[in-house]
Structures are given as structure tokens and as C-alpha cells.
């Protein structure tokens, strides 16, 4: 499903010099696999996930989704590729504060051009599966962190994307809520999805089909 080769990414430091975060990362993830990328804070895990999800461009290297080279697409085509292939779960949930839980979930369907009624039905199913159906009309600020992340997970999988990228998905959660989210990610992989989780927490590796450590800008098995 996902193939990345030779990914290089640098940032410009305040001093003007370049900070090389990724120094030639290769990664392949098939459907049904849950890949955990662990590493210390600041090791470049989030950057790797952003690059894999086309949220920012790599300086060099190539990314393919289902054998389509998406890293060479135009900006608009990359946006459409994200909507078609990728679901994101962020550490800080990133729910839109002006939308209710249900509307946040349905936001994913808006840009995919899905039928509204069908998307709504599916969104309600997902919210029920994650145990937050009774909070569907609440705004994010009225939800706990665990509830917000469950809603964010529903949003990430609403369009049934073949690739799910989770960036420290339990970083702001307690253990109980963290376990719920990891279970959901594993279920996703069991259902045939390709899942990449980056985390500095060791339990992220639990149930993963492959675990990599990002150190010095390269992935180590």
C-alpha cells in the first residue's frame, strides 16, 4: 500500500543552518500491517509521518500509494490523494472547535464528495463503535481528551482510507483511553488497512507487525 524510498528532509534552523531530520528513509507497509515507528522526542517521527501523508514535501525521495507515485503530484492532486488514500490521527486531536463531534467526523466526507446521508449513517456507526455516540452533538471543548481522540479516529476512518497514519495518538491520553485507541488501530489493521503509528511510548509496539526505531534520521529495524 505504502512505499517510501530515500526520503530526505531538512529544516532551516534559526541560525540559518540546515537540520537534517530524515537522511534517506525507506519504508514499505502493506494492507493488514501495523507498523510502529518509535524513537525519542525530536527524532523526526512526526516529520516522517507528515512526509508519508503528503502534509509536507520531502527534499528528496519518492512516495507511492498503491503503486501510484504521489510525491510527484501537484498540490491539488496531493490534496485529493490525501482525501482518497490517507486518514490521520493526530496527538492533539485537531478537531475543529466550531463543529460538533458528528460534524467533525463528517468533515472527512465533504472533501471526498461522498453522499451525505450515507456518510452520516456511517459516522453514527463509527461513533457508536467508539462509544461516543451520546456525545455526537457536543462541541470539542465539551469533550474529554479521550472522547476527542475517539471522535478524531472516527473522522480518520470515515472514508475507509487504505492508509492510516497516527502521530502519537495516545500522547495526550490516560492509559485507559490510550488502550481504546490502540485497540482501534489494531482492529483497523486486522480489517486490511495499512497503519503506521509513531510514538515514543513502548506500548505502541504491542501488536505491531513491524517495529522500527528512527535514530539519526534513518529507520532501524
Amino acid at each position, binding site marked *: 500500500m505504502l512505499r517510501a524510498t530515500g526520503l530526505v528532509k531538512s529544516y532551516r534552523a534559526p541560525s540559518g543552518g540546515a537540520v537534517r531530520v530524515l537522511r534517506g528513509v525507506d519504508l514499505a507497509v502493506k494492507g493488514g500491517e501495523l507498523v510502529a515507528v518509535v524513537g525519542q522526542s525530536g527524532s523526526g517521527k512526526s516529520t516522517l509521518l*507528515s512526509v508519508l*501523508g503528503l*502534509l*509536507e*514535501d520531502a527534499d528528496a525521495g519518492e512516495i507511492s500509494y498503491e503503486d501510484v507515485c504521489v510525491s510527484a503530484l501537484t*498540490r*491539488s492532486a496531493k*490534496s*485529493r490523494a*490525501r*482525501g*482518497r488514500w490517507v486518514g*490521520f490521527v*493526530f496527538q*492533539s486531536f*485537531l478537531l*475543529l472547535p*466550531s*463543529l460538533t463531534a458528528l460534524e467533525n467526523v463528517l*468533515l*472527512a466526507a*465533504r*472533501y*471526498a464528495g461522498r453522499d451525505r446521508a450515507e456518510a452520516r449513517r456511517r459516522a453514527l456507526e463509527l461513533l457508536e463503535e467508539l462509544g461516543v455516540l451520546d456525545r455526537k452533538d457536543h462541541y470539542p471543548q465539551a469533550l474529554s481528551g479521550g472522547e476527542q481522540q475517539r471522535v478524531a479516529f472516527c*473522522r480518520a476512518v470515515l472514508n475507509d482510507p487504505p492508509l492510516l497514519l497516527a502521530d502519537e495518538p495516545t500522547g495526550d491520553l490516560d492509559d485507559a483511553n490510550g488502550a481504546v485507541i490502540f485497540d482501534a488501530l489494531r482492529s483497523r489493521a486486522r480489517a486490511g488497512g495499512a497503519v503506521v503509528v509513531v510514538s515514543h511510548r513502548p506500548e505502541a509496539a504491542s501488536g505491531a507487525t513491524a517495529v522500527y526505531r528512527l535514530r539519526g534520521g534513518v529507520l532501524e529495524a
Partner: protein
Amino acid sequence: MVGLRRILHGYAFAIAGIAIGVAGLVALGAMSERIVRFIEGGDRFVLGQISVAGRGMGMGAGFTAGGLLPAATIRKIAAVQGVAGVQPQIMLPLNPSTSQFMTLTQELVLGLDLSVPMPNRHYRELPVRAGRFLRAGDRYRAVVGAAFAASRGLRVGSRLPLEGVEYEVVGILERMLTAPDRFVIVPIEDAREQWVAKDRLLRTLLASGAVALTAADLNTGAAVGWRDAEDPDTVARRLVAEVSDVNVQIPSELSRLLRSSTAFFSALLGGIGALALVIGGLSLANTMAAAVFERIRDFGVKRALGATDLDLAGEVLGEALVVTVCGGVAGLGLAVLLGVSVDAWAGRSGQQLFHFSTRLVAGALAFSILLGAAAAAWATFRVVRLSPAEAIRRGA
């Protein structure tokens, strides 16, 4: 409906900021429009007739200020080629003790010879809001301007004492936002009595029998009309050449004079208007752009979910339209509320400070919408240039 409510909720501060900017813009614009209407009204009036007064000074007021204009002279004027009609008039200060003050809103008594149609091409008759205009044969009846009536609480049927005589108010003019708003219009016969009562010199002169004057000679001026296809300036110059002892106001020269005398106000109001545009415009643009930048993280999230630049631009411009229309309408409402409140207070003395013209309202709305949309478009352009990851980071 839900979307609209959400936009109103999400952009409440932006809408409030825009409303205040637009309110300031419209309020200043309405004051400017008020003065412009006054100047334009005066211009329209003087360009619609040739005003003639007797040669001299010290008699009459307004555009009939000058000397006595006897009946014989009026007959001479009527005989000049190109003249279509002459209406003898008397224009007197209502209160002579304040008539010398420089003012744009002088209260005047206008006596009209009602046996002659009004020759002014732009005012064949003055618009009456309540009651009726004067008719030939009326005596001790008056039609008053809107501001004059408001300042004294006059209605149709009210009694108005003038030089010790009670007049019945039979009509109130529509508010014209120009000089007639402060006029008391009476039959010329009544105006002659008032003139004699006001002017001791004239009384002394008449009592002495030194000059042979009849009532018909007591005119301070005349409104002169011209025939179709005649050039009014040419007719006016013909009057100067052919009729002695008259002050003739050339319409185009009088118009220029009027404009130059009000040039200071025009420049002042133009400056205020430009300042209002700049301040209101900057406030509006800044508010709208800030509202877009505040949502930079939301845009990053939406792009992560598959929104293209075009999707976001459409959303932002649609929202900007709603926000600026709401802010613009709220600002207009605020300005009108302010104007109506101030005018209600000022109206007790017959003043009106604001005029919310259609062009002002439409212009302010169009201005706020266009500027708001432009600011939103600029801000969106800046935002969509960022990568989704950068947008999310900056908005965190």
C-alpha cells in the same frame, strides 16, 4: 441556516469589528451627504431661475438682497426678449437681529405673488408634505419648511405669530435638505405688511410721502423664468443691459459663487470621507484578514482531510461574504440608529445632521463586501501557500 448560525458564531468578533468600521464610515458619509444635498439643492434652485433684486443694498435677504424692485421695473423685466415669466417676491429675515450672522440655515420669510406661476424651472411648485400650498387670494396663511415646523412643533392648522399677526399654517413642505426647509412662505401682500412692520426706515419713507410708492412697488426681488431654447445666462445679461437699477444674478455665476462659498465644507467633508474610507477600510480589511489567519490550523486540518486550495478559497470567500454582509448591515443599522437618535435630538431645533442616501448605503455595503472579500482572498492566498503540516504547526 445552521451554517449561517455557525459562521455568525465563529466570526462574532470579526462581524462586530466590521460593523463598527462600517458604522463610522456610514455615519461620516451621512453627514457629508447631508451637506452635499444642501449644496446641490441650492445649486439646483439658483440654476432654475434668474434672480433679480433692486439695485442697492439693505433691503431683503437671501438671493433677493438688494434694493427696492418697483412694479415698473418688473414690467420692464417682463418685456425683455427671452423672459417667460416674472414673479415678484419679498424675502425677509424672520429675525432681523440675527440675520447678519453668517449661516447656511437662515430662517427667512418668503413672500410670493401667487397670481403668477413660479418661474423656477426646477421648482414649478414646492413639494408639500402635509396640507396644501398657498393659493391666490390667501391672506394670513403660511406654508412652512419642514425644519422650521419641527423646531416650533407646527402642524397644519397651527397658529404662527409674525410681526404681531396670527398666521394659519396651511401646509408643511417636505424635507428638502436645503434652504426652503427653514422658510416661512406667505402671500406677497402679507410679506409687504411684515416688511413695513420690520423696517422703520421704510415706514418713515412711506409716511413722509417723499416717494410715490404703491403696495405693488414693495418687492425685494423677482424670480425670472426664460423661454424654451433660451440660454439663461444670455437672458440674464440681456436684463443687465436693458433694465437699469437692478442686481441681476447670472445663474451660472451664482452657481459658481455658491459652490466656492461652500468649497471649504466640501473639502472638509471630502477629507473626512477619505479618512473614513481609509480608517474604516483598514479596520475592515484587518479584521477580516485576522479572522482568516486565526483559523490557520483549521485550514491545515481541512487540507489534511483532502481539501484543495480551491475548496478552501471557496469556503473562505463564501464565509467572508456572509461576514462582511452581516458586518456591513449591522454597521449600517448602527449608523442609522445613531443618526436617527442624534437627529431626533437635533430635530427639536429643526436640524438634521445625517442623510442616509441610497448611494451612500449601497456604496458602503459594496465597499465593505469588496474589501472584505479582497482581504479574505489575500489572507487565504497566504494561508494556502503553507504546507498543511506548517499550517497545523503555526495554528497550534
